[in-house]
């Protein structure tokens, strides 16, 4: 538990994070009381899109749940919630990861990036987003945030992939509309945009 946590600081943190004040662990945290022996600290701070967010996280909570239901970042989609489809792909320390299969507690010291964090402050789309618009890569769009994050991760690791490398790099993301060709066109265009 953060020894510097005060009731005022805690409440400000919760308001900033948009988290609901409901759990007993938060009560312990807010009142400076020791949590029960053997329990897991629930009020943690995680780095999401460059901002430190205070959030109440259950021990078994997935990153997808935290992002969607605690932090209101609903751009991260749940298609299967069991590591099959990639709709929930986010970057954890630059690596594309299925947020449905990552425990939030396991990434609290890492940088998490979601689709909401890509657009620049002046409103410019990220090159991958811009390229996906120009190529009309999405169809229904439900898998798109995951495809975007997978492409961003791929291009950070390999800024100039061949189409084959892009295909391999994106292969963890399913698109039921079958827009793979259009997404690959987008990835290749994004690599050109830089």
């Amino acid at each position, binding site marked *: 538990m953060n020894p510097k946590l005060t009731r005022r600081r805690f409440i400000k943190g919760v308001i900033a994070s948009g988290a609901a004040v409901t759990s007993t662990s938060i009560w312990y945290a807010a009142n400076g009381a020791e949590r029960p022996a053997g329990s897991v600290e629930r009020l943690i701070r995680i780095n999401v899109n460059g901002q430190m967010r205070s959030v109440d996280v259950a021990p078994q909570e997935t990153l997808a749940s935290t992002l969607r239901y605690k932090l209101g970042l609903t751009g991260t989609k749940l298609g299967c919630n069991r590591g*099959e489809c990639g709709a929930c792909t986010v970057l954890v320390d630059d690596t594309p990861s299925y947020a449905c299969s990552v425990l939030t507690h396991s990434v609290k010291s890492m940088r998490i990036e979601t689709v909401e964090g890509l657009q620049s402050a002046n409103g410019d789309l990220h090159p991958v987003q811009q390229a996906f618009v120009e190529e*009309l890569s999405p169809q*229904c769009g439900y898998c798109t945030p995951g495809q975007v994050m997978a492409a961003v991760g791929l291009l950070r690791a390999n800024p100039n992939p061949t189409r084959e490398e892009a295909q391999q790099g994106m292969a963890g993301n399913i698109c039921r*509309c079958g*827009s793979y060709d259009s997404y690959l066109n987008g990835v290749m265009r994004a690599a050109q945009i830089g």
Partner: protein
Amino acid sequence: MAYMHIGKDFVPPDVVGKVTGRIKYSEDYSREGMVYARLLTSPVPHGRVVNIDAAEALAMDGVFGILTADDVYPDGEPQSPGLKVLTNEPTLVGEPILAIAAIDEKTAETAMAKISLTIERLPFVLDPLDSLEAGGADAYTGGNTFVFREGFAQEKWTTDQVASFRSGNEPTAEAQQSWAYGDLEAGFASSDFIHETVFSTAGYPHMSMEPRSAMAYWENGKCYLHGTSQSLSAIAEEMAGIVGVPLEDFVFINEATGGGFGQRARAGSIPSMAIPAKLSQKINRPVMMRVTREEEFTIGGARQGLQGWIKVGFRANGTMAAMDLYCISDNGGKGGGGDANSAAAGVSALYQTEAMRFRNSSIGTNTGHRGAQRGPGENQIMAIMAPIMDKAAEQLGVDRLEIRKLNAAQNGDVSGQRSEPFTSAYMPEALELAAKQFGWEEKKGRARQTNGSKVRGFGIGQGYHNAGRSGMDGIIRLMPSGRLQIHNGVGNLGTYSYASTSRAAAEVLKMPWENCDVITGRTDRHLPITSPQDGSNSIFTNTRTCYGAAQDLLGKMKEIAAMDLGGNPADYDIDGARIHQIADNTVGMSYAEVAQRGMELGGKYTGEAELPEELNTLTQLSVSRLAGSALMGIYHDPRHNNNPPGFAVCLTEIELDKETGKFQILDMVNIAECGTVVHPQGLANQLRGGAVWGIGLSALERHLYDPQNGLPASSGFWQSKIPTYLDTPLNIGTGWVDLPDPENPVGARGIGEPSMGSVSAALNAAISDALGGHLFDAAPVTTDMIINHLADVSSKAVPLAQNNFRG
């Protein structure tokens, strides 16, 4: 014809929301005080709920209530096999029996575990033929089939009849449904090559990426339902009926839908959306019902499996003289679809057979909920037909491309049970374009060439679907600001049709696209009725309504200009910003001025009088709520004539490894013949997406059920494997014939479904080609089937059943 918008790419209004994650699907919404529903579903494939004891669950802190079938259907459940909101008579594993609402999902799950459900097991069946056999189980309580307007019925064959069919012979039992045209006997008598076989195609789930989650609340007597559908306004009336609320008190909110593919077109196929609405009404709180992937598998729909017998006769020159088709359709646990009939209509349209007979019996099984799935029927049968066409070509010494041209649909041709003419048809042109783009003449000599264990195969496939409707309505408004608001109820499932069809209105009014707003996303934005967005109809149907509404508005603009500036309406033209005299373009009014003048005049100009008499109920409601707000164009579309077809042609080259049974698609082009192209990028997406679906049908996807307990074994993306990046070619070439159809004002017809059938056909033909012309007479053709064939054990190996007799 030179168009301003038609045939041009544009940025659909929702695409930025899709790449930024800002666009909201039903589960992305929340509401103050919202509680969460979880479903208790059937653990057995067929049963009857005897008792539900929820006392302990309801006594828990944080539990607000339950909803059962008795709440939803106080007068008893409807006597039909269709999907119900909740049921006490489940006919498949996973069918929702009750919903429980709690402060959070964990509490709801804990409470659900405290519910004591007593359910009587009933006999179940997974294969229609098992049900047809004397003594075989029936999928439904009242029988194994449902006869329209008559109810449940039981159909049985003799043991000999079933055994004979299983042995590969023509079924001898009388079929439930049949039609025919031409002289079948004479056709076969005149044939120089006849192919006769049994066949089977697998059913498989839709697997939309977005599970069908829904959230509902009630406010001031109105029900607000955040749901998912592929047909926004077409859903509303039926969904209001299922919820039990008058249409005027029902608001359906659906900005985006994460895939539909046929199973979210009509309210009857997504009645689960009524659960949070009914539960919210009962407990007086907003209710979110998140649907899991497993639940989506169960209630999310599936393609019908077909098994049957087909006999095709060809004359020496390659023309198809006769076709005889008998299907046994797997209707699954909740009724079914019309796949077999569509399959028959499809082969009639594509191959122009001179004589044809179609027979079908639809039989229930305790498997997934069957219904329309992208190209239902046509796309399965094309995968069976394409290798047969190649076999006929080989036997008769006709080129594989030429035999298709010989039998291709052209202008003036007819098809189907009623010999209905096409509105237009250019299949020979599509075949030629596809062959040219693919390089058929240069490449075809490589067929069956080997390189070590690998062998090349080529396939030509054709797809068809009836692709257009009419009789719908259009509403547009010219606002006092001069902007054009196009109200469009098509639904947003990824085709961008809601936007591309709206451009027909902008086209008529020469309106720059940046001055147009597409009004959609929720029914309280006052939308016109549209046809459900299925059957590849949207581009045809709704360009007609948008175009018609714009013509109505243009006429009113001219009347107002003539009234105020002199002359006759015919003396005026528009330029996208002003209406002016043709003779002197300095005499005119801006669009804003004419809209303001229209509002002063009121009456018919603002939707308050002289409305088209035939307007649908929903459109009438929308117009009444918009009346007086702007200068309005209101239109009811009359019926069109004849059958607007969507056609597609695919050519592909594969390399099949005889050691592993796997193949790689080396090249593929998919060409559209769908009238005038409205939105090139959208069309290319349909051709590419259809191709991926075609690969799934021909090579991968199938339902699997545990035969002992009837449990689904393929409820995930990897168990009922859908194609991934690595199953699809690195590039899919696209193209289009782009010749206008006379029954559409901009010349357009649909394409979404044929773009899949062409590929399922081409790929099956290519596999057959690589294997020296071997016909599997099945879809999918999976790796194990190929290996078993090569090892000559296919007749013995049935480890990966498709839930039908052929394994």
